[in-house]
Structure formats: C-alpha cells, structure tokens
C-alpha cells in the first residue's frame, strides 16, 4: 500500500475512533483551542503594542527633567532651564506645562497639555476622541471646566484628534499657556518639567548625569528609558499576564499529563483488538500520532486564527474589562498587526508537539504488550 494512501486510511480510522467519543473529544478540542486562543491573543496584543510603542515613541523627548521635592514631583522653576542650557551637548531646553484634570460631571480624568505651538489661541482647546465621546461634544461646542478657584469657565473645541491617534491622544486636551495657568493657578516662571534636545544619542546619559550633579533635586529621564519602559510593558513577568500565562500553562500541563499518564481501559482494549487482528506496533503508534495530531492541529489552527481576529479585527474586546479597569476614557486598541513567524512557531512547538508526543508514549507502552494480556486486563 503506498505510503500516502496508508496514512489516509489511518486518518479515516482515527477520525472514526475520535467520533465514537464525540462529546469527550469535542470538549477536549474546545478547551485546547481556548488555551491556544488565550496564549495567542496575549502574544499578538503585547507584541503589537510593544512594536507600535517603539515606533511611535521614537519621537519622544530626548531628555525630560523633573523636579522632586520631598520625594514628590514638584513644579520646576524655568531658571533651571538656563543652568541646563550651558551644559555642552544641549541644543535646546524648553519648559513644558501639562497636568491632569478630573471632570466631576463625566467622572473622567483628562490630560491637559500646552503644546509648543498652539494655533487656536486663548479660549480654544483641541481634544482627543475619548474626551469627545465621553462629553458627547463636537467641534465648536464648549466644554466647561472648574478653575482652581472653584469658578466655572469654558473653552471652545477648535479641533478633535482623529480616532486613529487614540493610542496617544484619547484623553488629551491641548490648551493655550495663559488658559492653562489661569485654570490651575500656576504662577509665571514655573513649568511641569523641562524638555531637552540633545542630538547626539551617546551624549544623553552624560548630559543626564551632569544635570543630576548640577541640580540634585531633579530627575532626568532619557529617551532610551522611555523606550525601555514600553519595551518591558506587558512582558511575560508583568502582573496579570503572568497569571494568564501560568493559568494557560497549567491547563496545558493537565492535558498533557492526562494523556501521558495512560490510556483508558477502553483505549487499551481497542489497541489490544487492533494488535490481535494483525496491526503492527508501528501502525498503532502512527494511529495515535494522528489522533494527537488531529486534535492539536485543529485546536492550534482555530485558536491562533480566532486570536488574530480577536486582537486585530475586534480591538481585543475580551481584554476590554481587564484593560479598562475603572477608567471612563478608554482608548480603542486598533493595533497594527505586527505578527512574528517566530512567535507562531514557538506557540506551535509549545502546544502541538508536546501534546502529540504525550499521546504517543502511553500508546507505545500499550502496543508493545501482548494483545492477549491487554484484552484480559
């Protein structure tokens, strides 16, 4: 019998055997696919987010300088900028104003920022898509704010950021410097932090060390540290991901352990009968190989494909309750699908291969026993 035909007969037989225990095997495939789905979803989501963060934050400030007072962030005097400007390698220092505003009406936190250039002038703001959605406002509407004195003021919405930029601007409100200062009661001559331009990347850690020495109450953060923060974001060691991965890993170990520790009496009997009617040990092992292969391949392919649809077509809606937390403004995670063949291959070798091997080992142990002995037990 030609090899391919033989394999097809074996697959026919294996499928018939699996269909005889339809309920058990369907449940097995569903749970197995679910484990792969969770693992693949986490993998796709974190990988896409990390890659997008690396690309988008490549334009982040080269050095940010914060001031600390009694272990807490404090406003930084703009005079610090003059001292820093004299450090060799620093080509520009600009004060930056930004802060948070809790809106009691919508129960949402906004990030207010004064950009270097704000074309709309006093009384106007530019808002992110998340702010527009939560406040149900559109261009030319007004948005009310409570000032630090408890007085109500309002700003006209001049522009709304596109929904494509939600990952950086969902809760953002751009405002003019005079409006920002009057809203929060900030005196002239102070800023939230300083932003430095240091063109030579090699000089940045040196400049940061010089700033720390010159102004000991400051904390410089260089761009590499920003990028590293997002590179380690959602890595396998971080919080809930470890719980998810550990849960999925344990579930998988239970599967494999269940298979590897032995066959049911019915399966042993089946092997005994097959041996008794003339099947070779190699045929039995091949049949069991196909059994493991059919279950694990079906689960792997459906799990991975569903995970791809989940993360990149439905904006990871199943992760939403976890990611949203108590936040009112929640960016829609329309991620760019950065899929790595290496990750898919790793997932394949971590799920399909061990399960298939775990199916073969007990079958081999049963198949090498005398059929008469197997049938009598």
């Amino acid at each position: 019998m030609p090899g391919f035909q033989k394999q097809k007969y074996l697959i026919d037989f294996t499928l018939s055997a699996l269909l005889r225990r339809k309920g058990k095997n369907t449940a097995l495939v569903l749970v197995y696919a679910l484990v792969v789905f969770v693992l693949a979803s986490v993998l796709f989501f974190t990988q896409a987010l990390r890659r997008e963060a690396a690309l988008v934050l490549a334009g982040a400030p080269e050095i940010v300088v914060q001031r600390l007072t009694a272990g807490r962030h404090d406003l930084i005097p703009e005079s610090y900028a003059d001292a820093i400007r004299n450090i060799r390698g620093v080509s520009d220092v600009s004060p930056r104003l930004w802060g948070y505003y809790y809106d009691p009406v919508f129960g949402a936190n906004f990030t207010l920022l004064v950009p270097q250039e704000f074309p709309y002038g006093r009384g106007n703001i530019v808002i992110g898509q998340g702010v527009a959605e939560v406040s149900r406002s559109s261009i030319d509407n007004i948005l009310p704010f409570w000032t630090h004195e408890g007085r109500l003021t309002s700003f006209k919405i001049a522009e709304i950021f596109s929904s494509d930029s939600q990952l950086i601007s969902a809760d953002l409100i751009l405002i003019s410097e005079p409006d920002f200062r009057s809203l929060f009661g900030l005196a002239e001559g102070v800023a939230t932090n300083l932003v430095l331009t240091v063109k030579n990347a090699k000089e940045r850690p040196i400049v940061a060390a010089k700033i720390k020495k010159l102004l000991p109450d400051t904390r410089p953060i260089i761009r590499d540290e920003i990028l590293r923060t997002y590179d380690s974001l959602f890595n396998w060691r971080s919080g809930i991901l470890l719980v998810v991965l550990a849960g999925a890993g344990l579930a998988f170990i239970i599967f494999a352990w269940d298979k590897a520790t032995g066959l049911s009496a019915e399966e042993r009997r089946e092997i005994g009968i097959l041996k008794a009617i003339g099947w070779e040990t190699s045929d039995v092992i091949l049949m069991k190989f196909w059994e493991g292969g059919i279950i694990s391949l079906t689960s792997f392919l459906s799990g991975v494909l569903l995970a791809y649809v989940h993360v990149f077509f439905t904006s990871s809606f199943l992760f939403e309750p976890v990611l949203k937390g108590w936040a009112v403004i929640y960016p829609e995670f329309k991620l760019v699908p950065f899929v790595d063949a290496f990750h898919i291959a790793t997932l394949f070798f971590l799920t399909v291969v061990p399960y298939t091997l775990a199916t073969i080992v007990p079958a081999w142990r049963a198949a090498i026993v005398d059929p008469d002995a197997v049938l009598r037990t």
Partner: protein
Amino acid sequence: MRKADFFLACIALGFSLLALMFVHSALARREAASNLRAKAKMVAKMGLTDLCLFTEARYTRHPVMADLNTPFQDYPMSIEHYPSGALLPVPRHLTGKGGY
C-alpha cells in the same frame, strides 16, 4: 467524501488562512506606515512621553513620569488599588542600577 480527505482539506484551509494572516499583517503594516509616522510626528511635536493606555491613575497613564511611591501616596497606609496597576511593571529606570 472520505473523512481523511475532508480533514486534510480542513487542515489545508487552516494553514492557508494562517499564511493569509501573515499576508494581511504585512499589508496592514504597509497601510499603517503613514499613520504610524504621523503619530510619531505628533509625539515629537507635543513632546509626549507615554501612550494613552490607561486613564484611571496617574502612574499608569504616564508610567515613565511616575515615581515608585506614586501608587501609594493617596493617604497614609494607602495601598495600590487601581486595576491597571496590576498590569504594568515598574519602569526599569526606577528600579535598575542608578535608579532614582
């Protein structure tokens, strides 16, 4: 149709979809390239340091700008209580050698 043929057809379809997934990924990346560049430009123009992943707490909205004590500073004996705090690791520049 034989069961084996049906199964092999399904597996072939599955692998074709897997290959299609990579094609879709490559095309979507190409399509998104200009949008990513625009976002990077926006980040550079506004001097942003963080992605807007979580808006519930300061230290998860801007993890780069946060301190080790930020999650615990709300009141004495305060414990870290925002769900997103369980998702994010502490930025390495706060804990690594030479951290602040």
